């Protein structure tokens, strides 16, 4: 790995990541700084790692005493400590899946009569999802209330009763270093970790496609040319390519890269927009599922390989608890408990290799109770004389 390449990777996103000019001074420099190290560590050492990884046959012969996986922090033997909590955590968790059975995210059961909370941006359309309970039952979902501010959706599993709902405790008294327990594998297995940083608000950066655009698209070209695509970004996943010319974003014709940025940025991560573009003189359309701009920037070069994936929406939360429980994006929406089995939050975003955010119970529970109350007892029509 040469310095040239480091420089290249550092500079690659600079020209205009969906118009960084808007924000260059603040967020951008921060991004640049934090990145070069990531790149160094990941890329330079990555090839070194391959040696060791691929030599795991040799490692299995144990060149040095190595702690077996089951004895590690999240190994079977250590996790046996939290198995008494299972009814209070795993027992109150369900799996959100596509109609084909692919796991989407995790749901926390908040009402015995089928009420569930989950991460809203993972399930933009509940008609295309179903819930699978620990006992194997599945059910269709009815959306009760969607709260974009909290990235939560309250839904009801249709025709399901007799569930065990979580018992909420208080998140306020949690201290740095306190153990927490959560669920992985879509609510099937426990995982432990600790409160790893201060509680705080996470500002939003808007949504992004993960493209760099030509600032000086020639006059004769009607649209905005793409000159770079971020690895594993919404744009790449949707099949957009370098040199495609963007013509229309969510119903509006575009001629300027700034406008593309505006149109995309104001939307919510997780939202799906229609993009019309020109490729080799042929007009085509694709649907793009937007992600948080933070996520796209942090993952420009696919640095995320060591993270096991991060959530589409990883910012813009009024308050979060940060913990180090090893989870995946599909585990979001599940409960976070203390070792006493009290639920203190709901996992809301897998952010990077070391970070998961959970919404603390105080940030949502009183509101959610009102939504449930209103749904169970809708106001009767009043006869006006």
């Amino acid at each position, binding site marked *: *790995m*040469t*310095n040239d*390449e*480091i420089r290249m990777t550092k500079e690659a996103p600079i020209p205009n990541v969906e118009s960084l000019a808007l924000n260059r001074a603040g967020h951008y420099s*921060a991004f640049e*700084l*934090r*990145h*070069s*190290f*990531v*790149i*160094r*560590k990941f890329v*330079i*050492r990555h*090839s*070194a790692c*391959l*040696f*060791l*990884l691929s*030599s795991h046959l040799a490692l299995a*012969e*144990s*060149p*040095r*005493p*190595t*702690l*077996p996986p*089951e*004895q*590690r*922090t999240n190994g079977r*033997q*250590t996790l*046996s*400590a*939290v198995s008494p909590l299972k009814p209070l955590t795993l027992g109150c968790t369900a799996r959100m899946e596509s109609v084909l059975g692919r796991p989407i995210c995790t749901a926390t059961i908040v009402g015995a009569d089928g009420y569930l909370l989950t991460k809203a941006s993972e399930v933009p359309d509940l008609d295309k999802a179903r819930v699978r309970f620990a006992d194997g039952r599945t059910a269709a979902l009815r959306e009760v209330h969607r709260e974009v501010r909290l990235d939560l959706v309250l839904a009801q599993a249709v025709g399901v009763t007799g569930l065990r709902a979580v018992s909420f405790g208080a998140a306020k008294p949690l*201290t*740095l*270093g306190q*153990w927490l327990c959560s669920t992985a594998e879509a609510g099937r297995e426990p995982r432990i970790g*600790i409160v*790893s*940083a201060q509680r*705080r608000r996470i500002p939003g950066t808007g949504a992004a496609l993960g493209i760099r655009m030509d600032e000086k698209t020639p006059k004769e070209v009607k649209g905005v040319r793409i000159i770079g695509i971020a690895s594993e970004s919404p744009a790449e996943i949707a099949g957009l390519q370098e040199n495609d010319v963007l013509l229309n974003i969510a119903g509006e014709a575009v001629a300027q890269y700034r406008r593309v940025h505006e149109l995309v940025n104001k939307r919510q991560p997780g939202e799906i927009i229609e993009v019309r573009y020109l490729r080799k003189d042929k007009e085509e359309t694709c649907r793009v599922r937007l992600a948080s701009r933070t996520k796209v920037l942090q993952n420009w070069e696919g*640095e995320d*390989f*060591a993270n096991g994936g991060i959530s589409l929406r990883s910012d813009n939360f009024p308050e979060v608890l*940060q913990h*180090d429980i*090893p989870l995946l994006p599909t585990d979001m929406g599940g409960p976070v408990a203390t*070792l006493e089995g009290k639920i203190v939050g709901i996992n809301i975003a897998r952010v*990077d*290799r*070391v*970070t998961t955010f959970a919404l603390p119970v105080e940030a949502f529970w009183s509101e959610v109770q009102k939504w449930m109350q209103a749904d169970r007892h809708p106001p009767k029509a009043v006869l006006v004389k």
Partner: protein
Amino acid sequence: MRTPFCFLLTSILLVGQMRGAEQRQNAEKAPKTDLATLLGVQNDVQKLLPQVRPALVAIQTGGGTASGVIISADGLLLTAAHVPGGPGKDMRVILEDGSVTTAKSLGLDKATDAALAQLKKREKPWPFVKLSREVIKAQPGEWCFALGHPGGFDKSRGPVLRVGKIIKQTANSLHTDCVLMGGDSGGPLFNFTGEVIGIHSQIWENRDQNVHVSMTPFLRSWEAMQKSQVIKIWGVGAGGYLGVATVMSDDVELEVADVIEGSPAQKAGVRAGDVILSVNDDAMTDQQQFTATVRSKAAGDTLKIKLRSSGKERELAVKLAQKPQEDSE
């Protein structure tokens, strides 16, 4: 950066076999953890945190952000060698309370990623932690905790704590399941007496693969590092540079695992997955032989490499380049 690991691994292999067997037996006897154990761990960490946190620093260099830890009242700082990259480098240092000062890097051990730096003098003693001189005590299964500034200093977030277990100790490093990422480099790993037992250095893809420099290289090279000397066992720039990482495949063939962007190998068309059959008509059978062959040639020399790609044999001529220097900021 590839060869050191190759050497390291093979040398370890020769000595480690017996102990591996013992360890496996112990593993089966290990008791299950209970809630009381976890709560004990939590109490210990929370008791130590206020003592050790003030010694953690964030470091900013031209190249990025990282972490470090103060280990003496007069401001000696431990960090990872890839943070300053060389001796005499000025670094911006942010203390836990957000106040800013500077430090200058002293010596470093590039082979193990250990580095020493000196904070700017001040009247008041610096908050510091002790380092562990009994490296042997950091055994697999011991609980430990990590502090650092992953992603850089963030006042509203503060330092990030991780609690985990030691997985392995090697000659110069500790492996733990305290998950690290960019920005943590140089930060401290603590034992449960609050002593530094490791300095965050590198990660691999798996979440249980987090590597810290152990205290061994620091203790061994302390004086040299204080004199701002650079320790390089595997010299950068020695021999020609090809730019491939190799692995031994399941069929015990020398396979290309990775080709570095922009390297001579990539330019010549070597691809990951190719099997290296011979170099200059010498059959290649293992990694050391291959590395030695490449290294024995100078930059500018041309190698004739015979490969097998998806079943087909082909031959390439690759002109070796100068090994890129890492520390020319």
